[in-house]
């Protein structure tokens, strides 16, 4: 349905995203993740035709909509946005405040060559489906963020686009309203069967709209998988978003297939490679990841001498309703440990006096690839 091949976008010869390639199947929802300023919006705009890539090719529903020669950078084909069959919803929703909700949605059909009666009917049915009829004569500034988002989506889908591009649809929605809106959007996308790309920096969206997860970090696509699972998790940003701790280390020794000793500072950690299929060479730079739960923390500095035990010092304690989150420093990294209340009460009196030892259960530690800033994988 959508094919993006080797797309590079840049301004004044400084690339913003480089050599991005992926495919999205018909009806699929692709969640495009990445930290702020990683190029998510730029990629969305390149697909929409709002920015012109330096090279690459974009195919929507079998039609080439953009093509530029890789070497000369000459643009061979660049279909204007409104002829690409896309619906676009920017992160600020971009509603026209002088028009009513109905008129805003009607703009989605303004340039379509169908009768005005047909237009009226289409707008009416979209408004009804999205539960917006009762707001149809209101101006957008009187609406909540959630309703504004719905109006913007209604405007984008009323012309039945082949591809819907949503840029951070939930970024201005308050956390309490997000689940209900996510549910409604999911229902909408399923019933309209629109192929969708949704940019987000909230990993929660990846779980809700699981279909395909793409991650952009350091200008490149660093993760592309049909779904989020611990076995496919090989991206540092994604791991951090999911609450994993990430430490940098070097491969020291291969002890068994998929099992390696990794040197973290002066400590050896035994870790497995669940997501990396290839052999890792000794000395190569990797990241190890482990969750914040199920770890053991004991007072005293016994670490560094034994495998999987790290010396740590306590930075901060965040008391939660049912557990306690500790911020620790494992030089030079900062890590997060979630302890059940009971365990915390046992060590509470001692943790401030002495340094601590963090024990990592062997089955909880995984190796993922380490991407250098130049975008090349070292592992």
């Amino acid at each position, binding site marked *: 349905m959508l094919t993006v091949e080797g797309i590079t976008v840049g301004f004044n010869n400084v690339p913003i995203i480089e050599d991005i390639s992926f495919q999205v199947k018909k009806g699929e929802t692709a969640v495009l993740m990445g930290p702020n300023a990683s190029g998510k919006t730029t990629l969305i705009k390149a697909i929409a035709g*709002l920015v012109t890539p330096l090279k690459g090719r974009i195919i929507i529903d079998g039609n080439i909509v953009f093509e530029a020669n890789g070497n000369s950078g000459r643009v061979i084909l660049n279909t204007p946005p*409104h002829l690409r069959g896309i619906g676009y919803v920017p992160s*600020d929703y*971009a509603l026209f405040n002088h*028009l009513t909700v109905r008129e805003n949605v009607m*703009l*989605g059909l303004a340039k379509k060559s169908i009768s005005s009666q047909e237009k009226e009917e289409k707008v009416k049915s979209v408004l009804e489906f999205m539960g917006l009829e009762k707001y149809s004569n209101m101006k957008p500034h009187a609406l909540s963020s959630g309703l504004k988002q719905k109006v913007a989506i209604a*405007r984008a889908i009323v012309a039945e686009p082949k591809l819907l591009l949503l840029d951070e649809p939930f970024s201005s929605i308050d956390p309490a309203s997000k689940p209900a809106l996510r549910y409604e959007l999911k229902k909408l996308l399923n019933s309209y069967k629109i192929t969708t790309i949704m940019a987000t920096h909230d990993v929660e969206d990846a779980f809700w709209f699981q279909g395909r997860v793409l991650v952009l970090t350091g200008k490149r696509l660093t993760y592309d998988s049909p779904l989020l699972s611990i076995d496919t998790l090989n991206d540092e940003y994604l791991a951090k978003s999911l609450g994993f701790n990430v430490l940098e280390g070097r491969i020291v020794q291969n002890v068994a297939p998929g099992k390696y000793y990794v040197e973290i500072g002066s400590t050896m950690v035994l870790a497995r490679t669940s997501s990396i299929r290839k052999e890792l060479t000794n000395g190569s730079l990797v990241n190890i990841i482990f969750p914040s739960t199920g770890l053991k923390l004991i007072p005293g500095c016994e670490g560094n001498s034994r495998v999987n035990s790290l010396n740590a010092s306590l930075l901060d304690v965040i008391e939660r309703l049912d557990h306690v989150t500790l911020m620790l420093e494992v030089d030079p990294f900062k890590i997060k440990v979630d302890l059940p209340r009971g365990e915390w009460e046992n060590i509470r009196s001692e943790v401030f006096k002495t340094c601590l030892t963090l024990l990592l259960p062997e089955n909880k530690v995984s190796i993922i690839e380490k991407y250098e800033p130049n975008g090349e994988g070292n592992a």
Partner: protein
Amino acid sequence: MGELTPLTIVAGFIILFELIILGTVFYLAFSTPLPITELLQEIKESAILSVETSLITTTIVLMISIPIAYWFSRQDLKGKQALRALLGIPYILSPSASGLILLIFFVRNPFGKILNESLGIVNDFNGIVLAQCFLAFPIALIYFTALFKTIPQSLEEVARTLGYGRVEALYRIFLPSLKPQVVSGALLVFARAFGDFGASLILGGGIRGRTVTLPIALYFVNQYGDIILVAYALSSYVLLAYLILFLTSILER
């Protein structure tokens, strides 16, 4: 009105002060029987000429400045500052200096002479309009460029995905959405044109019965020396100004 705050007291004093000042003029004009003179008729004609030329100027200036301002607001041209400064010169110069510059162009430059002969500019109605346009254009350009910079890029992008070209989006979507601000801009242009004395006098020539706008008429009446007639002319001027401002504020809604 709400409670009595220092701000409302200050505002009250300003309004009172203005009413007393204007009231004096009105009192003088209407407490004494008006001598019926030819000048009275000429003041009326001047008022009509002023409104007429200022409306034409406003239309022309908005038509030209809005697209240029939009283009300015969307471009990051090299040398933009120099270009803006050049276009803004009449904004800083005194109106009579602008009038003199135009006059020299139309009587001394060969191209200016041809234009003058074919269009009838110096000492003519068109001259007044041209002088007013020359003065008002930079104001419109500065104002509308600043206004269009406030249009979020995302609105423009959405308009493009919906099939609106840049120009069409400007006229069909953005201008209607900025109606109150556009009306305010039009008022700025109108005020500059309506209030001009120097440039209109120099290029229009101040020919009685032909090119005497209201500000020029006031000057002439004052020279004539009848204070009652001056007060009468001023009262008409003030009433006209009030009417224009009132109509504008209705349009702005």
